[in-house]
């Protein structure tokens, strides 16, 4: 037990010399939105790169899917109006979409880890706009998903699809939008979750239908009425439309198509909605009840 005398003596001994600059507290100008968001996004990506298992795991799975499923299905794949197209070609944008979807959503598991390990509370008490916290996480998660799917995009020249340089630009834009939408969705769901196992369970129930009913596995034409309604309401189906269209036509044709523009508007609106949802969840503080 330290007595007051020794405590005082310990304080007076001058073991530590502090710089003689003016150390009085000065309020800083409040940080903006993009600076902190960028800092948080960079941290997210740095963490990802420093965990090689994450990189290998999320890269290997869709590649395997692409090769095995595509090779197996080609002989029986004869949809009306798409004769001459191999299932591998049909499936490629779907795999691209799956990679973005899964990598984006699962990158938001780190929200739960950050809360668990305490990092999150340090960010929450910082004087940053709540939207910056959301944008940082969403941009970081998206950059991880895009890093992986861009590697897959390198396979395009070997597919024999009529894709143009302008088309690639549109594809990239569609991928970025999709990644933001999925990451924001995952963020909003993960925000209040306490365990990563619970997150996995919810995501399996929620994600698989989104992807299965997106047109990634089978074309949306010729399905039962209720299924085509579900597909029309599914934002992932619209995201897939804007990713897939530029593979088969040049940019000008694609941009003149009302169906494409509708899907683009749906996806953009959905990204905005998810970001707003995230920000409102982050801004909410635990309230004590009257009693």
């Amino acid at each position, binding site marked *: *037990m*330290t*007595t*007051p005398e020794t*405590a005082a003596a*310990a*304080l007076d001994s001058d073991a*530590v*010399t*502090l*710089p003689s*600059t003016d*150390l*009085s*507290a*000065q*309020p*800083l*100008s*409040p*940080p*903006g939105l993009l*600076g*902190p968001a*960028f*800092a*948080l996004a960079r*941290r997210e990506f*740095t*963490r990802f790169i*420093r*965990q090689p298992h994450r990189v290998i795991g999320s890269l290997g799975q869709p590649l395997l899917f692409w090769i095995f499923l595509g090779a197996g299905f080609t002989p029986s794949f004869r949809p009306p109006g798409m004769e001459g197209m191999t299932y591998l070609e049909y499936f490629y944008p779907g795999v691209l979409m799956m990679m973005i979807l899964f990598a984006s959503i699962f990158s938001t598991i780190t929200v739960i880890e950050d809360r668990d*390990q*305490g*990092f999150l*509370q*340090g*960010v*929450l*008490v*910082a*004087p*940053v706009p709540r939207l910056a916290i959301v944008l940082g996480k969403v941009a970081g998660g998206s950059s991880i998903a895009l890093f992986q799917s861009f590697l897959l995009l390198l396979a395009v020249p070997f597919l024999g699809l009529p894709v143009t340089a302008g088309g690639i630009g549109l594809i990239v834009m569609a991928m970025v939008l999709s990644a933001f939408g999925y990451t924001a969705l995952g963020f909003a769901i993960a925000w209040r979750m306490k365990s990563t196992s619970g997150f996995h369970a919810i995501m399996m129930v929620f994600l698989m239908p989104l992807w299965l009913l997106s047109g990634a596995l089978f074309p949306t034409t010729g399905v039962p009425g209720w299924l085509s309604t579900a597909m029309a309401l599914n934002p992932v189906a619209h995201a897939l439309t804007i990713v897939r269209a530029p593979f088969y036509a040049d940019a000008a044709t694609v941009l003149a198509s009302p169906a494409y523009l509708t899907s683009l508007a749906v996806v953009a609106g959905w990204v905005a909605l998810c970001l707003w949802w995230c920000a409102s969840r982050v801004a909410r*503080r*635990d*309230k*004590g*009840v*009257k*009693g």
Partner: protein
Amino acid sequence: MILIRNLRHTYPGTRRQSARNALRDLSLEIADGQFCILSGPNGSGKSTLFRILCGLATPSSGSVTIGGHDLATAPERIRPLMGVVFQSPAVDKNLSVQENLTLHAELHGLRGAAATARITEALSWSDLKDRLGDRVETLSGGLARQVELAKCLTTRPQILLLDEPTTGLDPASRRSFILALRRLQRDRRMTVLMTSHVFSDAEFADSVAILRDGTLLAHDTPDRLKAMVGTEMVVIRPRDPAAFAAVLETGFARTPIRYGDELRIENIPPEEAVPLIAAVLANHRDDVLSIGVKQPDLEDVFVHVTGRTAAFAAEADQTDSRARRQPELTA
């Protein structure tokens, strides 16, 4: 200045658990430049108060004013003034010390040369200077705590909140952490509120506030708190505490206070302690396991005020559920 007025906090009930009052009408005032330690057994409301003060929760009623701003209506005015060190680490283990400090500076709008200067300044007192490139997960517990504190200092906070910052540190690291903190607090004229279980920490404070069941039991300087239990006390561990309390009452005209299996006669004049011990031993040697004179320290104040023995408090640390049990008071 931290001004807490009539603070109440009730956690909403769930289907399995009824609503729980964590803070009941708590008022506390900490003047500018003061170092205040907040102590109390588990479940006393320390953590709830801490969460409210750093703006992570809003209270049921009452008000908190920090640096002249109201916490309920203007949290964004308070956040820039405040540094918070949490009990669980708030740094990223996968990042280096330097990367963590830079990230924190950027979250507070500091960049480039200004950030570098502030980080150097914030590290000046620490032992981290040659570990800047190392990932935090490779640091010892004591150094990792220094990163937490250095991180907060980069923004030159006026108010520093710390939640059990010395948990898990060995006594030497704990002492050097507290000493560094106290010096920084004086040199930078910060207002510090720190929760702690460790009584030796409290010796360094300007004031100590003791909380139990969501109410403030005492708030004063360490010296004045110690005067509450007098300059000396006699501590007896009898074989049968209840029976022996009666013996002291009838045979010696002393009213002991029972804490667990210990009887204490507090506030006894110095010249009476030794004769009392001699008399007790002469007549009741076989009933007494141990007996002694003790100068009160803050641990004894804590025991006196909260009615819990140190052993009980330690036990309460182990299991939260048992912390609800109340010790018997025969006084």
